[in-house]
């Protein structure tokens, strides 16, 4: 009897869901229209962005050098401080090659360390997070050493950093890879003697579409609620309760919240000023570094032959 009731209630629940959805569609008709409009606007936006990109040569800089854009919180902003900070960043970039890298790239970082043997310390790992603006910019590397997960956080402009080398330049499906902490260890294991993989010039940064497998629970975070694209087997480990909670906690309207997006970003006009101030120096640095790297690539085959 109890079973029958349960079944019936679930059926009713499902039916009700279906009905309500239908009803909403019929009653409002707004979403359908809105969707149509959106499609057109998206296309337009793309065009606009492309047009802007063609006009504005340093539009892509915001992905390559994200730390040059200040924190958008208006309470902390000051044009002079930002200018001084940028000048300091450029001075540091003149001293050391800070290459282009993204979350998901594999880096090797050498740091001066008074306590280690030989006074330097090298760490290789996958970049799982990149955050902070200006001189506070930082990134986190993760690796598994002797079956033990290790994460090291580095300041990007720390003068104790001797070299930063990109071993494999690629992007992943997500903006933060914290789920590697709960994934199988092979996804974050990288040998310390890895060779750098050189990309042919002019190729776009490749996107690695690998989907990692999570270990069974307990987890460090509720990964199911974060809409992760780079996780393969998340549904296996979920209970019915978790799915219901995920539905309840979902905030699907946030991607339409234009004000929220605006508050998170620096407006185009201000970005133009910033890149105009910085771009020429950054380009110069990039060109000189390119020449240096070419020289290095010519030297490597000789050693291999030998």
């Amino acid at each position, binding site marked *: 009897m109890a079973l029958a009731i349960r079944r019936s209630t679930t059926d009713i629940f499902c039916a009700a869901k279906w009905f309500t959805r239908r009803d909403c569609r019929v009653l409002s008709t707004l979403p359908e229209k809105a969707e149509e409009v959106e499609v057109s606007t998206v296309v337009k936006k793309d065009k606009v962005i492309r047009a802007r990109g063609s006009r504005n040569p340093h539009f892509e800089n915001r992905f390559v050098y994200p730390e040059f854009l200040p924190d958008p919180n208006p309470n902390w902003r000051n044009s002079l401080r930002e200018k001084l900070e940028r000048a300091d960043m450029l*001075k540091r970039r003149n001293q050391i090659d800070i290459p282009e890298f993204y979350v998901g790239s594999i880096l090797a970082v050498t740091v001066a360390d008074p306590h280690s043997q030989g006074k330097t310390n090298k760490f290789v790992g996958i970049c799982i997070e990149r955050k902070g603006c200006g001189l506070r910019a930082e990134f986190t590397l993760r690796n598994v050493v002797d079956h033990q997960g290790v994460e090291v956080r580095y300041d990007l402009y*720390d003068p*104790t950093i001797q070299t930063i080398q990109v071993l494999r330049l690629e992007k992943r499906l997500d903006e933060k890879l914290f789920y590697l902490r709960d994934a199988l260890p092979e996804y974050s294991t990288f040998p310390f003697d890895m060779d750098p993989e050189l990309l042919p010039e002019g190729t776009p940064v490749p996107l690695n579409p690998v989907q990692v497998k999570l270990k069974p629970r307990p987890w460090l975070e509720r990964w199911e609620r974060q809409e992760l694209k780079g996780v393969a087997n998340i549904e296996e480990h979920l209970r019915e309760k978790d799915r219901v909670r995920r539905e309840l906690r979902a905030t699907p309207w946030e991607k339409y919240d234009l004000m929220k997006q605006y508050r998170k970003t620096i407006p185009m006009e201000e970005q133009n000023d910033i890149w105009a101030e910085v771009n020429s120096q950054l380009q110069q640095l990039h060109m000189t570094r390119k020449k240096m790297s070419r020289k290095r690539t010519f030297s490597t085959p000789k050693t291999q032959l030998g």
Partner: protein
Amino acid sequence: MATCNMNILLNTLKKLRIDHTIMRSFQKPRFRPPYWYIPKERAQTEEFLTQDNKHFLDEVVQDRKLNQALVQSPLASVETNQTAQWNPHTRRVGLIARKIGNYPLWTKDGKKVQTTLLQVVDNHVVKYVPPEEFNPMKKSSEIVTSNIKRKLGCILVGSETVDPSTVTKDYCGIFNNVGILPKKHLFRFMVSPESYLPPGTPLSATHFRVGDHIDIRAKTMDRGFQGVMKRWGFKGMPASHGVTKTHRRPGNIGAGGQKARVWPGTKMPGHMGNRWRILRGVKILRINTKHNVIWTLGVAIPGETGAMCYLFDTILPEKKHNTQPPFPTQPLAEDVPLEYFDDSVHAFDQQSISFEES
């Protein structure tokens, strides 16, 4: 006729009675603004100016700003004939600065330190009041006694030039005899008479040196009416285990028995922040001479970004000046380095830090 009038007068005087008297108890004198204070804000009214006239007024202001920049510091002529001697007891003038943010610097041993940036925006000496005439209106007994021992004068310093048409005429009058444009912020510094500065002297960030310690006075962030946990750091009460409605409350505020009352000074909820506070002994790590910016160690300088700060030589005995600082102030010079760094600070255009094997 005259007697008649006198009679009327006497009658009226008889009718006069004193039936309502006000007895005033002694009250402490309230704070009154100093005598040179003149209201600054002006009611903004529609002037009905034509566009041309507006442009003309703007041009005039721009010209006057340029002239102000070109005027030579009066210190240049004074210093040649008169050299005042500095001793550890003299008090120099301070600076008015604006807090413009924080960012990290690194020391030469590779340690990251947080710094606060203070910008000194066109500070000028507006007025000097010698000790004989200087008579501050609000004084507590301590100041009176110390003044008898060591008389101090007062230097009025202004910062941040404003458009003269936005302030009152009387307020502009303070600056007109000096020959500078009116300033947004005024502050008086108590100084010993040796460190006299002629009105019109520009002050810059090089008034202090790198490695010096300063006291910074500013208003703390206004946090409004706050409970006891945020204001005094009380622990509150547990979240569960049968606790109802008393998670963030102070609990007991006094004992019973003989002293059945709340003792004065008990920590209770109330308004938090927006108070004048002085942070003493803050070290200067770096100075930019072009933009007049001072990097100070630490992030505890009161106020939010954009707050006004007042900088003085520190009074902490351990951190006072050992050698003579720029006295009475550093004269403006053309060929100064762009930036001064403290010995402990790593400049970003130096090579990366590496440690040698010992």
